[in-house]
């Protein structure tokens, strides 16, 4: 994961042109894969025959993202996490669109959010298991994420009004020094 992207930018919103270019390539390449005759048929088939459309869409998106990530790595390109995050969202939208065009029942927004959540969680889990992200890096990313406005809201929601049941989201660990190894 790239350094510092979890930090909030306080100034006027600006996107690094390099990231924009990377994103453009990511999306264009992803759409090329999704609409390739061979892959689109396979993706559609897998989604349509799946009992769990949420998981099928999440898996299909992950497959395309991983393919793109591997391809980028082979070309010595390090994709930023923002490109992955927003690019995956767009590609998931495209996958859902072709699946719906091929006959899948329209997917409600709620299920789309579930699919995106599932894909994100699987991605992070796999990244740690394969060593792409070390546990120390993940912890540091977590600390950075907590400092963002969204992260603060999430931590607040974790600590407010949540009964201590197994269903609750994990509580934020107490602050402690971030590992020396950076993200």
């Amino acid at each position, binding site marked *: 994961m790239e350094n510092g992207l979890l930090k909030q930018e306080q100034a006027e919103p600006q996107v690094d042109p390099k990231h924009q270019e990377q994103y453009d390539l990511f999306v264009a390449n992803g759409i090329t894969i999704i609409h390739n005759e061979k892959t689109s048929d396979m993706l559609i088939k897998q989604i349509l025959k799946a009992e769990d459309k949420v998981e099928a869409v999440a898996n299909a998106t992950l*497959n395309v993202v991983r393919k793109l990530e591997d391809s980028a790595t082979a070309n010595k390109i390090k994709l930023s996490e923002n490109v992955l995050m927003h690019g995956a969202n767009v590609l998931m939208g495209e996958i859902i669109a072709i699946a719906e*065009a091929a006959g899948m029942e329209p997917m409600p927004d709620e299920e789309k959010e579930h699919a995106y*959540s599932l894909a994100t969680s699987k991605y992070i889990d796999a990244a740690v*298991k394969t060593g792409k992200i070390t546990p120390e890096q993940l912890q540091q990313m*977590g600390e950075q994420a907590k400092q963002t406005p969204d992260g603060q809201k999430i*931590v607040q929601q974790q600590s407010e009004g949540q009964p201590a049941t197994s*269903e609750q*989201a994990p509580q934020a660990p107490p602050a402690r020094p971030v590992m020396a190894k950076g993200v």
Partner: protein
Amino acid sequence: MPIAAPVAAWAMGAATAAGMTATTVAAVGAIAGSVAVGIVTGAVIGAATSVFTGGNIFEGALKGAVLGGITAGIGSGIGIATGLAPASAQLSAMGVSAAAPVSSAAPTSVGMTGAPFWESTASGLNPASAVGGASTFNVRPDLVPAAGTLATAPVPASNSLLYSELGKGLSKGIGDVASAKIKANSDAALAEQAKADAEAKIAGNVPGEFEARTANIKMPNWWEKYTAQAADIARYKPPTGLLGGAR
């Protein structure tokens, strides 16, 4: 599910990579950019917490993602939609200023150009702007969704101000309703009153739901089967001894 995909062309421009023929497609994110940011933020926090506590990373990430999605949805106004229209539209109808809707099917509606990283706005990088205007893709015509199906990501209203304004508006509305009750002396007035009561009830549900969600967010349980699957995988131990290993 391995995919035998064409090799992504990183070295060349996106326009060339995508073929630049055939149909123009405005790629639209599956979900609002702000919710995507919330989900990823929550997933990272949840996964990191699991590392700290020694829990299951997938489970922690998924629970965090769910909470992040809910929180972002509430924050952006998506979570208080009654099902008839986005919250921003409802609030606009009530005279509360909300963000202007984005035109559907416009490539820039998913654009992140101009949006900061990790900011809670509907954001996304603009697929067409930087690299040679890659707004056209070689898409199988039979799979191109109709333009109307390209949903527009909901645009978040300005949250705290918006809810503050909403509260003021509702107070005024409730006061008006109370006044109307005193004046109700005829059938027409009673009918008018009934209508006002119904409207007040509908309007009252909006902040009511928002308050309920923020005061004590109940985590839904849709992820349980996925976390259960993960737990099963974690518990699974490959049989030993078949290849000479000791049991």
